């Protein structure tokens, strides 16, 4: 039956229910806020401000992306042994792994960054004796270390949960085929686990980009650090608004990319 063959009665007029009014009022408010933002940025537009600080913002953005990217990678590498240790039967392995994960997930990233940057700073003589001072001297490395440890803890839990979510039958099937454990993991279990893990991993990257804002407090000039610097020179509020626009753009782009990847790799699961 085609659409043209069906005679439908006309739709009844939609009344203005409370929800419809609320929806339109709220949308009007958002649109007004959006217009207000554009108008404010346009009116407060100061070519001098831009010339002075746009290059700084750009370099800050590069610092943010490089810091997050590198620590995500290193954290992923670190998370594998931690996740494995978490599931080990040996309490000497499982205990410290649990402690590591509990500490880095239970304390604020800001506290961890301060602990590493200022805390290690007070141990300079000892660190110099060990030859490690060169590392802890630099704020960027301290931030990298704090982020890597933090994300490794979260990623270890994501990996562990994803691998444990693969049904036991998959392992048994692989064993029945005579495959060694590591081959089962690599060829059968991990691909399935990564489908489950994709969304949490994506969230973790987004959270890291948002969390990276705190390194400004330990003198690393990422995007947020450059924003605070610009504000402290000019006291012009639009410095923060521009930072907000840039962060939102990055996060939304990332989220869309992750959505798209997820749709592609779970296409075979849709009925």
């Amino acid at each position, binding site marked *: 039956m085609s659409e043209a063959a069906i005679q439908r009665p006309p739709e009844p007029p939609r009344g203005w229910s409370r929800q419809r009014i609320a929806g339109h009022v709220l949308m009007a408010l958002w649109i007004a806020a959006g217009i207000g933002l554009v108008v404010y940025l346009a009116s407060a537009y100061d070519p001098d401000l831009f010339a002075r600080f746009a290059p700084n913002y750009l370099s800050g953005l590069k610092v943010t992306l490089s810091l997050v990217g590198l620590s995500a990678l290193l954290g992923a590498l670190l998370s594998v042994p931690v996740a494995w240790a978490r599931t080990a039967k040996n309490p000497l392995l499982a205990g410290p792994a649990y402690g590591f994960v509990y500490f880095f997930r239970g304390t604020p990233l800001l506290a961890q960054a301060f602990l590493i940057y200022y805390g290690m*700073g*007070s141990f300079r003589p000892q660190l110099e004796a060990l030859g490690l*001072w060169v590392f802890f001297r630099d704020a960027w490395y301290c931030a990298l270390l704090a982020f890597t440890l933090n994300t490794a803890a979260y990623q270890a839990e994501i990996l562990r949960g994803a691998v444990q979510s693969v049904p036991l039958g998959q392992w048994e099937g692989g064993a029945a085929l005579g495959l060694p454990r590591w081959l089962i993991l690599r060829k059968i279990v991990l691909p399935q686990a990564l489908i489950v893990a994709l969304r949490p991993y994506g969230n973790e990257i987004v959270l890291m980009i948002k969390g990276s804002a705190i390194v400004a407090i330990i003198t690393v000039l990422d995007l947020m650090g450059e924003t605070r*610097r610009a504000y402290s020179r000019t*006291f012009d509020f639009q410095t923060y608004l521009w930072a907000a626009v840039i962060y939102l753009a990055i996060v939304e782009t990332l989220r869309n990319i992750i959505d798209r990847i997820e749709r592609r790799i779970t296409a075979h699961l849709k009925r």
Partner: protein
Amino acid sequence: MGITSRVSLVAAALALGLGAAHAQDKLRIGTEGAYPPFNNLTSDGQLVGFDIDVTRALCEEMKVECEFVTQDWDGIIPALQANRFDAIVASMSITEERLKQVDFSDPYYTNSLVFVAPKSSDLMPDNADGKSIGVQEGTIAAAFAEETYPNADVKGYPSQLEAWADLSNGRLDAVLADFGVQYGWLEEEGKECCEFKGEAVSNDDRIGIAIRKGDTALAERLNAAIAAIRANGKYAEINAKYFPFDIFGE
């Protein structure tokens, strides 16, 4: 909505503090509390320092009750504009850029910028380009370092104390800051490790009391009080307590 949410709504409304302008016989003074020996918080939460003593003397002259409010340096001018306090006495330099946002009283001391570095270091103002220089973010030292030493690694800290901490533990080659505050540090914590390097790099900096734009009444009262304590010797007394040299300058 349960009782907890109602209570917190009321608490929030009260905290918003909608009210008329404050009464005239009480003055709220904003200060940082992390800038010894000018304004510093002791371990039992008391504010001490040159700025604090000068403020108390001024308030005595003006016959008003003064209340101190501590505020982090990077938010101190917005807090003044938001009426969180009526004046800032925190060793704030009078600059063009700040004059766009606030008004200032007459200066109450003079300042210069000076480098401090470890005793073993050969850093001098003319070879500081290319080194790592610590400054407090949002101060004239930060602006000066960035303009004058474009190749230096200028690191901005939320407070002066953190900059000195990193100088002590070797993360910085030098710290650029106000003469008075560096002097205070070298007398206390920095005595063993560090010293002044070279002459002052920027002189003629006046320190004033910041007040909201257009608050001319308060400006006049402050100026009169400053002149009064200069004349009756109270200023000299406070000066002598902290510094063996005349900090008023001119």
